[in-house]
């Protein structure tokens, strides 16, 4: 998943959580970059027609941006579920975050052929636990940085 996809996924989740535009600070915190870096990428997303940035309000994704964000979230869900179900990684959230920039969506599609993912994906993703709410594990632990 490339950097743009990670930003779109993050903005989408922040928007879902706050039920409104996502602040640059929240986006930067979630991705683990400086607000200046986040601003630079947000500008690129705007110029590509994927997001709109309103001063003092925050960032909202366009319909096209939402479509890309949901694809990116689905890829992330595949990585998490694969780590947990196939490789039995206990800290699957932390590792998924490390690997999301490394695993291409075409690779994720292949991994998807051996996991049991629900049709409602990615709507079942819970940003609070950083995991699919249908996963049969204790996800009450804090999500990784």
């Amino acid at each position, binding site marked *: *998943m*490339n*950097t743009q996809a990670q930003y779109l996924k993050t903005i989408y989740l922040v928007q879902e959580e706050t039920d409104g535009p996502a602040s640059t600070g929240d986006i930067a915190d979630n991705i683990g970059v400086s607000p200046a870096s986040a601003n630079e990428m947000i500008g690129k997303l705007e110029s590509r027609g994927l997001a709109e940035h309103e001063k003092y309000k925050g960032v909202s994704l366009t319909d096209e941006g939402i479509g890309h964000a949901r694809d990116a979230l689905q890829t992330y869900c595949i990585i998490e579920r*694969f780590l947990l179900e*196939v*490789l039995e*990684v206990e800290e699957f959230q932390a*590792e998924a975050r*490390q*690997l999301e*920039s*490394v*695993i*291409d*969506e*075409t*690779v994720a*599609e*292949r*991994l998807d*052929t*051996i*996991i*049991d993912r629900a049709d409602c994906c990615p709507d079942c993703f819970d940003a609070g636990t950083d995991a699919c709410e249908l996963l049969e594990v204790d996800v009450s632990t804090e999500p990784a940085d």
Partner: protein
Amino acid sequence: MSLTHPVASDHQLARLLQIGMVLEEVVEARAHKHYETLGGETLDKNIVNLLKGAADESAEHRGRLESLVDELDADSVAYEEIEKLVAAQYESDTDFDGVLYDQLCNEETAYKFYDDLITAIEGSDIEFTIDRRWLLETLREIRRDERDGVEDVTALMERRE
């Protein structure tokens, strides 16, 4: 380019190699499953040879990746486990052209994965506990096989058109 970050540790390298092993095991298990489902007698001889070649090659790649994973002191992924998962999710209505398309996706995905992995390792200044030259040579040879595989499947698809 999907690998925007270099590989940062032995642990991450081992995890990526495990994923490579699983991709190889998926290819191998799906090739066997296609053969089993469509039947050796009804399948075109060229497709049978392609499936057999793909399964053999994946088994060989898996063995080479397993050696690397072992050296990193990580666990390998048992083929039997992946075979079961492939069987559980396999869609039995795959036809001849579907088999070829599936093989093409396998080869292309594997090529992309190794290409990205090699770039990420080359971009990393971490000193892994395994020999970097051996690691990269192994991955480059596997990548070359996958590239040849894409060409073989594409040629077969073109001949059938």
